[in-house]
């Protein structure tokens, strides 16, 4: 593999934005799971105890929300659904078996990546809204107890959804070799771009 033939995929700002989001999402998952299931309450020790976990969790949520908003505006145009995505989804079985021959050439994101993007966009919005309702220190007086109960269920469901999507996202990066450098170095190999995002690759090459 020639070291020189790399294709730029993410700017430094985009990578920093991504890793702030990643770190806050992991911290939120750990602190949230600690308060969700008694068997995981021991995770509160990572945050300085139960009271500290309860106090810190919503603030990390604010960081995640703002940070994800940055990612959203950076990437949403590239994540709009098109006909090729529908074809890709219909061949999902072939994709997870690493048989991508004959699939349409893809832009910067495949349908799976787009679903991760939109899934997290919707879930993080719901998590933020329901989280505000549950943030008793500042917002206890603005909602009824029934609204708080509903928010607790919505918050838990969306959090599990977001964690599951996160697992898919991380696993895809582990499984598809050559992906991680996009977020660590900002670039991918020509071979990777050719195999996975050929249409995007051609556009990048064609740019003056």
């Amino acid at each position: 593999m020639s070291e020189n033939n790399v294709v730029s995929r993410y700017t430094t700002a985009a990578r920093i934005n991504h890793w702030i989001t990643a770190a806050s999402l992991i911290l939120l998952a750990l602190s949230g799971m600690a308060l969700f299931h008694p068997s995981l309450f021991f995770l509160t020790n990572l945050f300085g105890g139960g009271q500290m976990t309860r106090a810190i969790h919503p603030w990390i949520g604010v960081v995640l929300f703002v940070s994800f908003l940055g990612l959203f505006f950076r990437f949403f145009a590239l994540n709009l659904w098109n006909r090729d995505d529908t074809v890709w989804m219909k061949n999902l079985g072939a994709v997870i078996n690493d048989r991508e021959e004959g699939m349409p050439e893809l832009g910067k994101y495949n349908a799976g990546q787009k679903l991760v993007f939109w899934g997290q966009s919707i879930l993080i919005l719901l998590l933020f809204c329901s989280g505000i309702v549950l943030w008793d220190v500042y917002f206890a007086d603005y909602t009824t107890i029934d609204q708080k109960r509903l928010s607790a269920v919505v918050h838990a469901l969306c959090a599990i959804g977001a964690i599951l999507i996160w697992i898919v996202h991380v696993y895809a990066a582990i499984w598809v070799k050559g992906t991680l450098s996009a977020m660590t170095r900002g670039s991918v190999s020509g071979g990777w771009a050719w195999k996975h995002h050929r249409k995007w690759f051609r556009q990048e090459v064609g740019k003056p």
Partner: protein
Amino acid sequence: MATLQSLDIRRRSASTEAPPQIRQQGLEVAKLIDVSKCIGCKACQAACLEWNDLKQEIGYTDGTYNNPTDLTPASWTVMRFTEYEHGDDLEWLIRKDGCMHCDDPGCLKACPAPGAIVQYTNGIVDFVSENCIGCGYCVKGCPFNIPRISKADHKAYKCTLCSDRVSVGQAPACAKACPTQAIYFGSKQDMIVHAEHRITDLKSRGFKNAGLYNPPGVGGTHVMYVLHHADKPSLYAGLPDDPKISPMVGLWKGILKPISLAAIAFAGVFGFLHYITKGPNEVSEADQRKGDELAADQTKPRGHS
């Protein structure tokens, strides 16, 4: 309030260990509040503040006798006054509000902090404040809207049924202070028997719907009311007619917990199995060559941008 001897704990919040069961089933206690005998003097409120060494901030009157107007982190019991008009008749209904000490406590079920809420074998539900993390889940779990979170220390507070007094054979402070003996305390069985006498008496005085409030939706309570209108508990400042732990809380604290952990574990295991059966998705030599050729055509400078 610190916990009683640990042998007397029936349930402990957010704990999976089995409670100690070596002792005989303890005597269940109950407080019986006879609303028909209450004169609204608030001696119970004063006794509660005094015994528990609490200070209620001076507030503002809302033009009624409700003072303070709601339960607070310091006021664990308040008298709620209702003017019930029917026909030409006016009844002044006065209900001493506070924790009902449910046999099936929603607060305990919702609590995520191990040991922050316990239920003793005598039926008293107690908040162990040192373990409380101030999340407010007990507020969502409670069908009676009782726990209050302090703005000072972000901990939840409510009536302890004077568990410290009861543990040494004393009646709760409110029961001790009541001048009309509208508050009784004893074994739950005795309190039910006593309530029957009072209900018979009330019925003979024309309150044909008099009855005992010991709602089965929460497994019965260890604070019970004798009501002259037991057919309409909500007359008494919104006492729930049929209190139950909200199905939302049941979902959140019940089925959702194991299903969520199972789903996360399944996703992890699926990924692992996929990797060891399908192997990594690698770029072939042919793809690499084609990629390199195309990249070589790149008209702009290569590398990071």
